[in-house]
């Protein structure tokens, strides 16, 4: 059965989604359990797959029994197997942590939400593991379509910003499809490994030898940048994530941009090969410039925000700049930093968004509501401190190591503007998070007009000393958060292993 693990990681999500859809009419009360069971089964299968791949090496799974390039193949190499485990783990944590919120945010429709959630996760996991360029497009659409729907429920602007996301997202996916059309017309194949061989034959001296291949790379990049929200194409990203209900934001925010950055890395490593992908100086310079601009723009916009989730959205934008910039520095350290940062940033964003949804539920999302946070919600606040420190780049946390690789890559490549932007963004992050810590630690608790105690007329008149655990969330919400926060440290301590087993295993050996 171990040979079937790649498909067993995804099948439970599909069947789980169909089961909860039918379960709306048949076993409504058990739906949450069915959905969590599907996520847990998928997580188990992907962890087993990751262990198998890391010990035994890359496995290629032929869907339908047809060998590539005739059929579609799933490629489980160390990078995709680990990413698969991270994606399903993140989804499981989000789902377990936001049970109460799903039930209050989507009354009467929570079975539909479970189905959409499971299919969104299935789409993201499929994107990670597929080895076929067109299958990737279909899976991007599966992931995106469910994202549009679950982000649409929320505050008044949620619908409009979700529709905007739909237009931009479909445009990005269509551009990717067009780029694949360019590759298909030149090579006649859709399988990534096959494509890479044919591209090397067609353009032995790099992409500058062939206008159509260079254009294909440009169009695919444009599509991916639109989908991941790099600086000039970022306008769709902050809206849906900050206006939607918390569970949807906590799912989409960590996954979408990171998985798209993963696709970018996959395109560089597996389809074009790094030498060819970096062979166009014009594209490299332009992309580095955009990445630098994205980092600066995200950081400075984050400074201007007054609410926690909006601030996180803009930090997300600057993190996209980190990953894209590192991939185009043109050296091994930069690409290592990008790959490592995809994993690290997934954990950091997940930790911060989960903490933010706890804070929003307990006190309200604006900074002015967050006084006394450390007294009122100590565990959540501790997790937030860990996420924040990792985002700033303090050594034992994983955020430090990715920044270290990116910085050394930038200095090797002589791209000092990018290096400067990285350092500046760390400083800005420090300002941002220490401002929150200050409010939370020294600020006076606002009146207790929190959602949990809106009828507190009496509390106004008799301010009592607050008990220690007064507003902390139940353990079911804290446990996933603590696991994620602990994994930030674990990931930081295991950096050497991750880079040796995962990153070095997928990068071509001759890469400078």
């Amino acid at each position: 059965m171990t040979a079937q693990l790649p498909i067993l990681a995804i099948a439970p999500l599909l069947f789980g989604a169909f089961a909860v859809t039918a379960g709306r009419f048949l076993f409504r009360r058990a739906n949450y359990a069915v959905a969590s069971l599907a996520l847990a089964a998928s997580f188990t299968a992907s962890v087993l797959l990751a262990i198998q791949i890391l010990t035994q090496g890359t496995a290629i799974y032929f869907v339908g029994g047809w060998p590539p390039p005739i059929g579609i193949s799933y490629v489980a190499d160390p990078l995709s197997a680990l990413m698969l485990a991270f994606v399903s783990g993140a989804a499981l944590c989000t789902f377990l942590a936001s049970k109460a919120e799903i039930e209050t945010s989507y009354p009467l429709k929570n079975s539909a939400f479970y189905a959409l959630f499971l299919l969104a996760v299935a789409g993201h996991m499929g994107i990670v593991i597929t080895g076929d360029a067109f299958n990737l497009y279909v899976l991007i659409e599966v992931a995106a379509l469910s994202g549009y729907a679950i982000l649409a429920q929320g505050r008044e602007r949620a619908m409009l910003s979700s529709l905007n996301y739909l237009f931009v997202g479909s445009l990005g996916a269509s551009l990717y499809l067009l780029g694949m059309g360019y590759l298909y017309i030149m090579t006649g194949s859709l399988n990534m490994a096959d494509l890479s061989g044919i591209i090397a034959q067609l353009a032995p001296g790099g992409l500058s030898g062939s206008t159509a291949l260079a254009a294909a790379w440009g169009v695919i990049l444009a599509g991916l940048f639109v989908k991941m929200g790099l600086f000039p194409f970022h306008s769709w990203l902050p809206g849906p994530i900050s206006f939607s209900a918390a569970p949807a934001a906590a799912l989409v925010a960590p996954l979408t941009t990171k998985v798209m950055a993963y696709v970018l890395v996959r395109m560089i490593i597996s389809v074009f090969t790094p030498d060819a992908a970096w062979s166009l100086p014009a594209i490299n310079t332009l992309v580095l410039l955009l990445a630098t601009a994205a980092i600066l723009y995200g950081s400075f916009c984050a400074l201007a925000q007054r609410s926690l989730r909006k601030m996180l959205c803009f930090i997300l934008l600057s993190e996209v700049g980190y990953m894209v910039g590192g991939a185009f520095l043109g050296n091994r350290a930069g690409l290592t930093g990008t790959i490592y940062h995809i994993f690290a940033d997934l954990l950091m964003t997940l930790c911060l968004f989960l903490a933010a949804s706890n804070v929003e539920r307990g006190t309200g999302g604006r900074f002015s509501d967050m006084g006394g946070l450390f007294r009122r919600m100590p565990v959540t606040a501790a997790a937030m401190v860990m996420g924040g420190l990792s985002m700033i780049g303090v050594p034992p946390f994983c955020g430090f190591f990715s920044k270290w690789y990116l910085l050394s890559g930038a200095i090797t490549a002589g791209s000092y503007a990018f290096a400067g932007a990285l350092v500046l963004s760390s400083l800005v992050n420090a300002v941002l998070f220490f401002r929150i810590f200050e409010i939370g630690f020294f600020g006076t608790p606002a009146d207790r007009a929190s959602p949990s105690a809106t009828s507190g007329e009496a509390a106004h008149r008799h301010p009592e000393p607050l008990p220690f655990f007064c507003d902390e969330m139940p353990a079911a919400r804290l446990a996933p958060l603590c696991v994620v926060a602990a994994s930030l440290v674990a990931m930081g301590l295991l950096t050497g292993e991750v880079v040796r087993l995962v990153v070095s295993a997928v990068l071509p050996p001759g890469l400078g």
Partner: protein
Amino acid sequence: MPELFAEFGNKFHYYSYFAIMMIGLYAMIAKTNLLKKCIGLGIFQTAIMLFYVSIGAKTGAGIPIIDPAVGTADPAAYANPLPQVLMLTAIVVSVATLGVALALIQNIHRDHGTIEEDEILQRLRGK
């Protein structure tokens, strides 16, 4: 100059696909009406499908179903089935996207009373 004309004659269909694509893109950028944007998205996606389907065309080839009189010895006798399959998928994806977009548009109209994007933004700012 004659080479240029010959080149144009060989490639004119690609140029017209890009022209259709750009008409759709223009509608998505410049139009403020949300339904017009949907139509623009549809035009953009259809133009890409047209590009793919044209890849599969072969001069003098028949439809991709076995003709017993011809047999399958020569693949050049049949149009390339692969781009057609891919575009079947893309058509279905595009109608799915359209359905979701229309559902969102109806809800926006219910909440704001209009489907002009600039008017909605003005109202939201006014609040």
